[in-house]
C-alpha cells in the first residue's frame, strides 16, 4: 500500500516537508519510488504564473532532442531550475543526466489562441515529447503546464529528496502532492508513479482499482488524446476527474457519484435522484472497484480526498485555517501539523468527499446523499 501526503498552505512549503512526512509513514512504502507534484509555486515561478513549465528526466541526447524540438515550435526558455546531481549516487537510485524544470515563453503565434486551443496544444507537445523519448528512453516527461512542477524518481523518498536537494527555496510551493511508492507493478516504470496529471488536474491513489481494464477501454474511446498511457490502474482517476469537469461540466461533488454511485434505495431518497440515476447508467463504465483512497487537485488548486464505496483504505484530513494536510495515515499529518486541533481531523467515509478550496479556511465534507449543485 502506498503512502500519500498532500499539503495546501497559504505560505509556500518546501517539498522536503512532504518527503519527510512520507518518511515518517515509511512502514507502508518499500522505498521503490517517490512522486511529487508542486503547484501554486512560490520562489521565482511566482512571477510567471502563466508560463508552461516542463518537468522530466533527460539524458544528454534527450536534452538536445528536446531543445531542437522546442525551438522549432517557437518555445523559448524563460527560466530554469538546475538540480545539481551529486557525484555519488546513493544505492537504489538510478543515475540520470538531468532533472529538468524549465519554464517556457509561449511561441509568438500562440498568443492569439483561445484558452482551450492553448491547453490542447500544450498537451499535444507533452504527448509528442513522451512519444519521442519512448524508443531510446532518453526523455521522460511528467508535465508541461503553467505553475506546475513534477518530480518522480525511483528509490527511497528521503534519499531521493536529499540527493536531489529538494530543500531548494526555489521549489517551495503552496500545493504539494507526494506519494511514497509501494511497488505493485511488475517492473518499476516512472510513468506508473503517482501523482498523475492532465491539464491542471491531478490525482494520486492509495490502492488498486480492480475495474481498471473496462474503465481504460472506455476512456480511450472518449476521443481525448490525453487519455493515454495507463501505466497504472490508478491513472484513470485523473482522467475521470478531467472528463467529468470538461465533458460533463460537473463539479467536484459529482466525482463520487461517478466513481462510486449510490445504490438504488439511497438514490430514491436523493433530491437529485433522477439526475443521479441517469449519471450512473450513462457513466457505468467509470465505476471504480477495489480499495482506493483518492487525493486530487483541481486546476484552481482545490484539494480533495474521496474513498472507495466500502472505505477500505485509511485517509485523514486535518489542519487549521491557512494550512491543511491530506494524508494516508495520521502519523504523516501529525508530523507536519503537530499543533493542530486533532478534534477537527476528518476521516472521509464511503459517501464523503473532503474538500479544501483555495482560500484554505476550512475543510468541507460533502456527502453523496446531499443535494448536488447542478448546472442548469
Amino acid at each position, binding site marked *: 500500500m502506498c503512502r500519500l501526503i498532500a499539503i495546501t498552505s497559504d505560505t509556500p512549503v518546501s517539498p522536503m516537508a512532504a518527503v519527510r512526512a512520507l518518511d515518517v509513514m515509511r512502514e507502508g512504502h518499500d522505498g521503490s519510488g517517490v512522486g511529487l507534484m508542486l503547484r501554486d509555486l512560490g520562489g521565482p515561478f511566482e512571477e510567471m504564473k502563466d508560463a508552461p513549465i516542463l518537468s522530466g528526466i533527460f539524458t544528454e541526447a534527450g536534452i538536445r532532442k528536446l531543445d531542437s524540438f522546442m525551438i522549432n515550435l517557437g518555445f523559448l526558455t524563460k527560466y530554469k531550475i538546475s538540480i545539481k546531481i551529486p557525484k555519488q549516487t546513493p544505492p537504489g537510485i538510478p543515475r540520470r543526466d538531468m532533472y529538468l524544470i524549465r519554464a517556457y515563453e509561449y511561441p509568438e503565434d500562440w498568443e492569439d489562441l483561445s484558452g482551450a486551443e492553448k491547453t490542447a496544444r500544450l498537451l499535444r507537445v507533452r504527448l509528442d515529447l513522451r512519444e519521442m523519448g519512448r524508443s531510446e528512453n532518453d526523455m521522460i516527461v511528467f508535465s508541461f503546464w503553467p505553475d506546475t512542477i513534477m518530480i518522480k524518481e525511483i528509490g527511497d523518498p528521503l534519499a531521493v529528496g536529499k540527493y536531489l536537494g529538494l530543500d531548494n527555496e526555489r521549489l517551495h510551493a503552496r500545493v504539494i502532492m507526494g506519494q511514497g511508492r509501494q511497488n505493485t507493478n511488475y517492473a518499476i516504470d516512472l510513468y506508473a508513479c503517482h501523482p498523475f496529471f492532465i491539464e491542471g488536474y491531478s490525482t494520486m491513489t492509495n490502492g488498486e482499482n480492480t475495474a481498471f481494464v473496462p474503465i481504460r477501454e472506455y476512456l480511450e*474511446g*472518449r476521443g481525448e488524446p490525453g487519455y493515454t498511457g495507463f501505466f497504472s490502474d490508478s491513472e484513470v482517476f485523473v482522467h475521470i476527474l478531467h472528463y467529468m469537469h470538461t465533458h*460533463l461540466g460537473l463539479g467536484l461533488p459529482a466525482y463520487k457519484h461517478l466513481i462510486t454511485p449510490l445504490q438504488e434505495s439511497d438514490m430514491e431518497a436523493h433530491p437529485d435522484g433522477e*439526475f443521479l440515476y441517469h449519471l450512473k*447508467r*450513462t457513466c457505468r463504465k467509470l465505476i471504480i472497484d*477495489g480499495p482506493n483512497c483518492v487525493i486530487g487537485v483541481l486546476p484552481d488548486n482545490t484539494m480533495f480526498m474521496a474513498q472507495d464505496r466500502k472505505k477500505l483504505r485509511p485517509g485523514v484530513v486535518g489542519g487549521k485555517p491557512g494550512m491543511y494536510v491530506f494524508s494516508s495515515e495520521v502519523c504523516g499529518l501529525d508530523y507536519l501539523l503537530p499543533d493542530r486541533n486533532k478534534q477537527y481531523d476528518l476521516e472521509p467515509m464511503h459517501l464523503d468527499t473532503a474538500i479544501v478550496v483555495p482560500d484554505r479556511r476550512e475543510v468541507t465534507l460533502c456527502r453523496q446523499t446531499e443535494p448536488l449543485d447542478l448546472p442548469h
Partner: protein
Amino acid sequence: MQTDGAIGPSTLSLKDLPWQILWDKERCTLCGRCTAVCPVGAIELKVFRKRAVNVDVDFSKPGKRGGNVFGTFYGIHQRTSPAFACVGCAMCTLACPNDCIGPVAADEADKLRFHINQGGQAERRGGRRNDPGGILDRIQFTRISMLTDPALDAGRHEFELTTLLGRIYPPEKNMEMLRENGWIPPVREIYPLIIGGMSFGALSPTMWEGLQLGVTYLNEELGMPVRISTGEGGCPPRLLRSRFLRYVILQIASGYFGWDEIIHAIPEMKVDPCAIEIKYGQGAKPGDGGLLMWHKVNKLIAAIRGVPEGVSLPSPPTHQTKYSIEEAVAKMIQSMYMAWGFRVPVYPKISGTSTALSVLNNLSRNPYAAGLAIDGEDGGTGAAYNVSMNHMGHPIASCLRDCYRNLVSLGQQNEIPLFAGGGIGKSGNLAANAAALIMLGASGIQVGKIVMQAAAGCLGSETKRCNICNIGRCPKGITSQDPRLYRRLDPEDVAGRLVDMFVSFDTELRKIVAPLGRSTSLPIGMSDALGINDKDAADRLDIRYVV
C-alpha cells in the same frame, strides 16, 4: 432371426441402437410400469420361449428317457425398429419398483443414425448440439486479489450485480436530453441471468406457470429483478393484463404467433412489459424458423397463438415482410417502440454468426436499438432438424467477444448491451460460464435448457439422451401438451427449483467476483481477469494464456 425372415436394409439389432435396455428377469414382477411409461414405446411385454432339458434318471423304465421340455415365459422386450428406438431417457428405471430395468449407452457408434430418415424424413428432435463440453468451461478466473487489494467477502460485503437492458446514450447526450426534456430511451435494471425465450406451446402449461411463479417470487420476495422471455408463442391473456407483465420480455418472431392477442391487450395492460425481443435467429437452428409440431397444438395453444388446432406451426426462416437490414431492424424496432409509446426497450435477437458484426454496426447507428442478444451454436430448442442443431451456427464466446471489441473500438460499449446465450451452463458450470462471458463483454446471459434441467428435471443431454421435446411426449411433462404427461410437473415445485437455481447462481457469482476484487458493478468486459490454457483461444479472445 427366423431363417425365413427378411433382412431389410433398416433391420437393426439391439447392438445397432444407441441405447440398450438391460432387464433383470429375476427381479421383475411384470408389473408393466416400465412399458407404460416409456415415451416412445421402445419396450413391450413379450412372450419368450424357453427350453429345459429334462434328464430322467430312472433307468428301470424302457424307452426314451428325458429330453427337451419347451415352455414360455413373460418378459420385457426392446423393439429395434427405428421408429421405436429407445432414447435412453430412463423413465423405465424411474418407474420400476424393483430396480430391474434401465438403458445402457452403446459401446460404439450406433447404426440407427443411418436409418432414422425413414420415408425421407430427415431427423428432427429437441435439445441441443450433440457435443458435450466447450470452451467456456476451460476459461479460468486468474486475476485473484491478493495482498495488494484484499479480496472481498462474498457473504458479508455489499454487491451490486444488476445489469442494464436498454439503449444508453453517451453521458453528454443524455445530460443534454435531460436538460431539454428530450426523449431518453427506456432502460431496465435487471438481473444479469435472463430466462431466454421458451414459448408457451413448446413448454407445457405447468412448466410455464412454474417459471412465471418462480420469477415472481424472485422479484417480489427476494428482490432479484429476474426477467423471462416468452419465446414466440404469445402470452396468456391474464398474464398480459396483470402487474406481473413487468417481469416478462415479449418475443416477436417471424411467425408473429400470439401477437394479435398481445396487440389487442395493449390498451388493457396495467404495466408495461420489461422489453420486446425481436427474434431473427436462434442458436440451435440458425437460419431456420421456429417449429411447433402438430402434436403439441391443442385447443389452448391454438387459442393463444390464434391458429387452428392440430396443425404444425413452422415460422418462416426470416421475417417475410422485410427485405433489407434497414427494413428488418430499423422499422420493426421503431414500430414496436411506437406500440408502447416509446416506453419499452426493443432489441433484436440473432443467432451467433460471423456476420453478427454487420448487424451490430447497423444497430450502433440506430438510436432505438436497445441491445443485441446473440444465441450461440450450443443453444437449445424444442424442435429442429438434427443437421441444423449439430452443424449450423457460431460458438458464442468469440462471436460475443468480437462484438464487444467492436463496440469498444467505437467507444459505444456502454451504449448497446450485448446478451449472450447458447449452451451456458451446459456442463453444469452455470455461474462460471456466465461470469466468463460477462468478462468477455456480455451485459447479461440468456439461459433456457439449464432452466429445464435444474427446475424441472429435464433428462436431455448432449450424448443423445431423450431430446424428444418435438413430439409432445416429454416424459417429464416439460414440453408436452398432453395433460397426462404435464400433470407430472407441479408448477410450485418448478418455481421452488427455479428459485434454488437463481439463489445458488447468485452465491456462485459473488464467489467469483469477490476474489477478483469486484463488487461495485458487474465486471462487464473485465477481460484481464480471464485466462485459458490454449494459446490460440487466448489470442482469439484477447485474454491471458496460462499454463
